[in-house]
């Protein structure tokens, strides 16, 4: 059914259609609306047979899901930012035990400085935690990928994160086709766990493993993710057959075939990019884009195939490996290590900085001239940075970097208006 609804509410409705049995909820911006809406759907009886746990922390939220999933219940939670970091020990634990929990991450920056706006710092901090990480571009895709996530998780016995841009998707209203319950029931079978806590067949879960087996356990976790590289497109095709939509899969091309320059990104920013790139193509540039929908497992083969004719790749990412550079671009370079394709790394949109069409066009044109420094910080104000560096040189007690930059920015902005 077509609805004009908020992204968070659409996700709540999608999760409800998946017949979750245990949902644990803790508020953190910007995922909060999702668990609020789920609470209502459980209370008003829309979701039948479901326990809604109001926990004391994100650590408790995922830990409760670990217990419920181990006891054979389909389990869901959602988090963002600091919440993800607070539950990180449980994040690794859930994947290590092979518990198919589905968790929405409303992507948000990590402090300090505290910042509630969108970037991918939270999800990226868990990129090596053994979870599948599926990034979505729109609220329609968020709905569709959540339904696929439960099936993927339970088939693989691995937890799945659905990563959606905080605010940009979670808080925006758009037209979303909410599937019928009968369609979801046809696609998603009941949860059949590989191991379960059951008094009729006692087993010990989560016990210690020494050096004699740890490597093999880790290898199998890695291998399972590689298996998912086949399963994800397979399930996307099954999904399309039932729901009539291409949603999910490993990567998605936006006129990247045959383009000299291909822009690679994740998530919702492709919406703005599509318009910019269409304009550039109209002006005669050979440029297209593709999004990585499955960041874990990383679709190296699919990328290599899609980029075989590309001379230049510009990776645009809302995350940073401090002291190293771009995280997505590192992964792309690894995938393209045997090719001559030039990979340029652009870091942008950190802490919710707006990504404008004009700014993107300027940056892409610089990229086409191979003039992007490595890595390129999109829309950075180097004057302000340099003045702060000067302050630090001049006085030992130079104070809070964040505060200084804001004061400086305010003074400069005020001066400009005079």
């Amino acid at each position, binding site marked *: 059914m077509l609805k004009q609804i908020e992204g968070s509410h659409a996700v709540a409705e999608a999760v409800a259609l998946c017949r979750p*049995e*245990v949902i*644990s909820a803790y508020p953190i911006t910007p995922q909060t609306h999702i668990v609020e809406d789920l609470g209502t759907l459980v209370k008003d009886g829309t979701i039948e*047979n*479901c*326990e809604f*746990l*109001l*926990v*004391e*922390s994100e*650590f*408790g939220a995922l*830990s*409760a*899901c*670990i*217990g*419920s*999933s*181990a*006891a*054979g*219940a389909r*389990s869901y939670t959602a988090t963002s930012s600091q919440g993800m970091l607070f539950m990180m*020990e*449980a994040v690794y*634990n859930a994947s290590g*035990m092979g518990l198919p929990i589905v968790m929405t991450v409303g992507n948000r920056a990590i402090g300090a400085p505290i910042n509630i706006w969108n970037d991918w710092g939270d999800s990226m901090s868990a990129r090596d935690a053994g979870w599948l990480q599926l990034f979505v571009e729109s609220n329609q895709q968020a709905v569709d990928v959540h339904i696929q996530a439960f099936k993927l998780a339970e088939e693989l016995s691995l937890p799945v994160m659905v990563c959606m841009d905080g605010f940009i998707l979670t808080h925006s209203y758009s037209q979303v086709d909410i599937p019928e319950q009968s369609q979801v029931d046809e696609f998603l079978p009941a949860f059949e766990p590989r191991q379960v*806590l*059951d*008094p009729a*067949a*006692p*087993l*010990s*879960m*989560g*016990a*210690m*493993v*020494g050096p004699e*087996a740890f490597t093999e356990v880790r290898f199998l976790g890695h291998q399972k993710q590689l298996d998912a590289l086949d399963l994800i497109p397979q399930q996307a095709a099954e999904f399309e057959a039932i729901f009539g939509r291409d949603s999910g899969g490993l990567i998605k091309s936006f006129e990247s075939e045959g383009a000299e320059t291909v822009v690679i990104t994740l998530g919702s920013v492709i919406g703005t990019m599509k318009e910019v790139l269409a304009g550039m193509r109209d002006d005669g540039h050979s440029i297209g884009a593709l999004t990585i929908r499955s960041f874990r497992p990383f679709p190296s083969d699919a990328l290599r195939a899609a980029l075989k004719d590309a001379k230049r790749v510009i990776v645009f990412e809302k995350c940073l490996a401090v002291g190293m550079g771009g995280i997505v671009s590192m992964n792309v370079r690894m995938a393209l290590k045997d090719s001559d394709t030039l990979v340029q790394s652009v870091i942008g949109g950190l802490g919710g900085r707006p990504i404008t069409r004009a700014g993107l066009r300027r940056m892409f044109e610089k990229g086409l001239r191979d003039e992007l420094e490595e890595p390129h910080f999109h829309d950075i104000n180097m004057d302000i940075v340099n003045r702060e560096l000067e302050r630090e040189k001049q006085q030992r007690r130079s104070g809070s970097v964040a505060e200084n930059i804001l004061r400086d920015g305010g003074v400069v902005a005020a001066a400009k208006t005079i």
Partner: protein
Amino acid sequence: MSQVSDSQQKVKFYQTGTFTAGNRLLDEQHRSVQATMDRCNSLDSGHRACQGCGEALGARYAIDAAMRATGNQLIAANATGCLEVFTTPYPETAWSMPWIHSLFGNASAVASGIAAAMKVKGREDVRVIAQGGDGGTTDIGFGCLSGTFDRNDDVLYICYNNQAYMNTGVQRSSATPGAARTATTMPVGENPGNVFGTGKNVPLVAMAHQIPYVATASVHDLHDLEYKVTRAMEVRGARYIEIFVPCPLGWGSKPGDTVKLARLAVESGMYPLIEAEDGEISGVTRIRNRVNVEEYLKLQRRFAHVLKPANANQLEQLQAIADRNIKRFDLCRVEEEQL
């Protein structure tokens, strides 16, 4: 005296120096779960606990009693710690019950999740316990524990209190008593050992959550321990039992003194045995043979410095704590029927 059935073990000796009657003097229905041949041995032999481990003893008593009370429909979530490590390294396990270890600080949250799953599956006959040591309970697991209490989830949390982090090499926890030597509170300098005036009393904190049942128990009194676990399983909602479990390794005591030390801790007033329902004290175990704290301390190297004349003030402070417990919980009132 009733006939002894085949399932009852013939007890071969009396405990001496205690007020505990030997099992064979008791009616069958008053005998302990451990005295029956059909006890479930949920924590089975062959594990790696140290000789004289109070925690292994306490866990075996408590879980077998809980299994009996639930008709063996029980699932356990275990915090990281001695109990987890000595019972399970894969591929071995000493648990003949469904058991999960997740992390150090989340046993109660995991148990809450299991209880939610059982509820949603219509299996409320399956009951859930969470268990951990004092570090996993009073320190790192405290937030999740309080959450389980707050939501009144149908979970019995059992804390095996040996008053320090034993698994990592005897470091201070918030359950370590004043003056005690641990690896992080060494008996050096002024006021040797753990600082007085610190720590938390989690049974009282549990009571402040107004949960249906809170109790403290000790491995020297098996009948009382089994009674409290059984009582806890008669109640729905969040319940907390703390069991006093001496640790020969961490305390510097003889393995053979574990039960004696547990008894002396109670009889000196250092470890009061209480029960509370809905936040109100509903019962205390009276002390029938009161001893000075020195009797309890002198069997433990962790308190050796307290007994030196130079640290007489520490001994006084510990005695004052015991005296305060006795007064606070009225532990020495002589019951009418005993007169």
